[in-house]
């Protein structure tokens, strides 16, 4: 069990070398919460945009007296209109993610780290991050990250996790991190709903190398992490080809889903460095 503090420290460590992520804010008129993304027009914000002649409707305290003193008319300083993106994360916390082989970290550790790292990056870039399922609405600030770390450290007792689209704001962004080995229909539903709301994002499949290779021989009883599902074979080696085929089919299905809904899909192995996956996530969210 990863302590939230440890998890956060790991995630901070991973996020440190990355530039601040400025996720594109696109058609987020409805989410009028201010962020640091300039809209190239006057509005609410911190950065200077232009001086304009004061209108009678402008309150007196909005007049920029320094500029007005240099001429006869009064001027008001407009700021650039800035908005913030809100991004929802779903990190699979089911038992299946606890699998690990050899010296690789568990899938769930890698998935949590990646999730929190991208959250830290986005937070640093001024975005609002939250978790799906109304567990943690999108918000900014280090407190949010701390809270997120705490929630991510909980474990579900189900074999396989399924995402839901609850809490996704229209036209926001979402990141789903899981092994996607369970029932695929939940993923499908979620993605379709999200697509309906104009939500786009990234699917990151985290797999253990053993799941990719199936290096088993002999008489074996395979059972899921909770033991709910069992499968016995007399010759595990004979199953290898068909297992790999099914895994490939699963990946194809996910990729196809992603294509149709405008999402990004990628598989990451716990045997690989985490940075590559984080970089990919960064690029995926940057994309328009």
């Amino acid at each position, binding site marked *: 069990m990863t302590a939230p503090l440890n998890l956060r420290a790991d995630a901070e460590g991973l996020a440190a070398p990355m530039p601040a992520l400025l996720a594109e804010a696109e058609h987020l008129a409805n989410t009028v919460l201010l962020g640091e993304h300039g809209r190239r027009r006057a509005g609410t914000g911190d950065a200077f945009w232009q001086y304009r002649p004061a209108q009678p409707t402008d309150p007196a305290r909005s007049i920029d007296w320094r500029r007005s003193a240099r001429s006869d008319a009064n001027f008001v300083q407009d700021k650039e209109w800035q908005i913030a993106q809100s991004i929802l994360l779903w990190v699979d916390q089911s038992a*299946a*993610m606890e*699998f690990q082989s*050899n010296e690789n970290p568990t*899938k769930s550790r890698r998935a949590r780290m990646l999730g929190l790292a991208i959250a830290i990056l986005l937070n640093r870039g001024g975005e609002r991050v939250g978790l799906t399922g109304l567990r943690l609405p999108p918000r900014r600030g280090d407190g949010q990250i701390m809270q997120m770390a705490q929630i991510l450290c909980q474990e579900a007792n189900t*074999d*396989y996790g399924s995402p839901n689209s609850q809490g996704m704001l229209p036209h926001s962004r979402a990141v789903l991190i899981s*092994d996607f*080995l*369970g029932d695929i229909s939940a993923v499908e539903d979620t993605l379709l709903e999200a697509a309906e709301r104009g939500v786009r994002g990234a699917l990151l499949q985290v797999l*253990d190398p*053993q*799941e990719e290779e*199936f*290096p*088993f*021989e*002999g*008489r*074996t*009883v*395979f*059972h*899921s*992490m909770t*033991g709910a*599902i*069992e*499968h*016995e*074979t*007399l*010759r*595990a*080696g*004979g*199953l290898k080809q*068909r*297992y790999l085929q*099914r*895994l490939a089919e*699963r990946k194809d299905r996910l990729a196809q889903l992603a294509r149709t809904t405008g999402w990004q899909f990628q598989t990451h192995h716990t045997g690989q460095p985490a940075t590559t996956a984080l970089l990919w996530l960064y690029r995926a969210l940057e994309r328009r």
Partner: protein
Amino acid sequence: MWSIGPIGFTAPWLLVALGALPLLWVLLRAVPPAPIRRRFPGVALLLGLTDDESQSDRTPWWLLLLRMLAVAAMIIGFAGPVLNPQTAREGRGDLVIAIDATWAGASGWQSQIDRVSSLLNEAAIADRRVAVVALSNLPDDALPFAAPADWQNRLPNLHPSAWQPSSAIDYFAAQQGQFETYWISDGIDYPERADLLAAFEAAGSVTVFQTPRSILAVRPARYEDGQVIVAATRTPTGAALDTQITAIGLDPSGVERQLATVPIRFETGAADAETPMILPPELRNRITRFEISGARSAGAVSLTDDALKRREVALIAGSDSREGLELLSPLYYLREALSPTADLIDGTLSDLLLANPDVIILADVATLSEAEADAVDDWIAAGGMLLRFAGPRLAASDTGRNTEDPLLPVRLRSGGRTVGGAMSWGEPKSLAPFDNDSPFFGLAIPDDVTVSSQVMAQPDPTLADRVIAQLADGTPLVTRKLVGEGQVVLFHVTANAEWSTLPLSGLFVQMLERLAVSTRPAIPDLTELAGTTWLPSKTLDAYGNLQDGSALPGVAGEVFSTAMPSSDLQPGLYMGEDRQLAVNVISAETVLSPISWPQRITVEGLTVLRETAMKGWLLSLAVLLMLVDVIASLAVGGRLRGPRADVAALLGLLLLSAPEAQAQVEADVFALQATSQVVLGHVLTGDPQTDEIAEAGLLGLSQTLFRRTSIEPAAPIGVDLETDELAFFPFLYWPMTSSQSLPSSEAYAKLNRYLRGGGMIMFDTRDADTAGFGSGSPEGRKLQAIARSLDIPALEPIPSDHVLTRSFYLLQNFPGRYNSRDVWVEAAPIDAAQVEGMPFRNLNDGVTPVIIGGNDWAAAWAVNANGTPMLPVGRGMSGERQREIALRFGVNVIMHVLTGNYKSDQVHVPDLLDRLGQ
């Protein structure tokens, strides 16, 4: 105890359980290996997949077999198997252990003694009185019954004899009382064996112990058609066999060497083999014995006596002008008489003298030139024999007329005389019987030998002593004069049939034989032997070694005619008055035949079989098989991965390759030790003290080298010639001990390779205080024995300009603990000449492969752990000076080894001259 073959079981009933094995097979076969439970999230993808091929869920057959073997090993193990179960020998009463103890058993003597020892142990347990009797060397009186423990102490003193039992039957027939007999047989039949067996059986039961072994023996060599025929025999006659016969003799410097070696091949089923050995006469005459290489018994040694020695006889006739008249040639009858038994050489006298013949025959030669006469005189004084025949020329000449000619035994009267001819009175004269002191004594004189002409001797005070044969009327026929080591003999008649019929008779040949002109037959006939006494000079022991025989009493000549060696006539060399006789174990007719014992006699092997309980081994095997089963089961169940696989692989490696790997590692460590730095080596002699001093000596030398020169050797290493590689060492120090054993032939091959490859061995006999070089100290003899098979070049004492005298220090003495000048190195090339103005010759282009001396250098070099000298050298300061010179010599030797002839280069001449103060 119930037994199968050599294996008995203490609890045979347990073996019944083996019958349950097939049942176990069926049971084990039905149970598949247990499945592994494996947590795997990907199981969701596996759901619905079935095993495509029908995989047998049964244990594989080889695993089953493994388990069955384990179980079987356990069952048999608990049944208590015992290898060679010994049933205690029953029997009470007196016991006689009779040992053949002949030469045939000499090579396996130790195993016979071991067997006797174990029989004595059994007898001690049964509380019996025992008499151990060597049949070839019987005790003087009654059977020496004693407690077995007494005999145990006496066993090491028992030795085989080089002859076969001959009088044992009389001895045992005289013994009273009943006893049981254990007969340790050598496996070779001899005439009285059957009678002896009957005698033993009359006294009690008989058990025979013998091991069939191959026995090789060499027959006396004989001379035939100009070549020596060596023959060997063997038993049993089995498959084809190749071996070698070596001729051994003294070389010109008196050192015993292998003179020649011939391969000899026994065809399949043949008991005898012979092969010609072609040798130059000079070499052939040097042969003292023939040996079968590698066999160690008296039968494999055949001593040679005069029979093989062919005398070189130079024939010179006064006139060869009458070509074609062969029968009238003065040399014709001599050639006929001598050519079967001697090597005849022709030529001019001065040429013949260079060949140093044994005999020079001058047939009717009157005068020699002064130079020739002087040379012949010297040759006679050095042991030559000049045999002259008279003739018309001698009769007509003035030689020895007034004064005695040194080359004639007597003065001659002019003209000679003729009797019984057409112009003379009287009858041709016949020979008078030979005197007692004549060498011809005992020869029968045929009636038809007559003399019609002769030269007459001048009456003289010395004449009577010099006549060794005379005519019936008392005139000398053969006269002899001793000169120095040699003699001059004159036949007063011609060598052809002109003056007498002597050359036509057999007597002529016999007389030549007696005069040792021609070679005699191997065994003289009885008449010749009668009344003579022969003194043993060397005797052959059963192991085939020559021993000094001078302590033994002389043997009457008649005994030789029977020629069966016995304790009275021990095999060896016997000296007669003027010739040697060899008595060999194997004669030309000896047949080696294996013994066929009657059916009723129990024949046991000689090998002492020890009871070996095999229970532990079998149970260990069972455990081992089970361990293998664990690994194999894991492998079959697919659980052999990760750290388990590593452990299993490690286990497997340990099980399979441990000893070889160990040996390899040891060899590698040795090689690394010997090659990572310069290391001096010394040959391990097996004598702990010598080895310790050698090691300490080389350590001291290494330390000196380290301090004084740029050679920085590591600690010295003792080298075992049999197992260690020699090529790593630039220098080997080999101290001689009289007790060390000869290296094996592989070790010799290694040593010769080492010497040829530029290595140096320093032989140290360590006896310079008591023995001069080449004299017979035990170490010196051992060195000769060891060096006989080594590839050692010609040697010379270190010349004063040898590079060893200046390779680091300028030295002229090479002392060790002793200070002897006798240090030998490879001889300089013959053409090495000193150039004017140079202090030394341009000598060998390389390193001398050996340094041989006896100065005990290691003892002078030896230091203990504190670096102080171990052994005293000399007295006081002069002793310390000697030690210093010894160390300097050591430094020079190592410098010579490592730099070769560098200091031989003329470029060092100015410096050396400067230092020499010239």
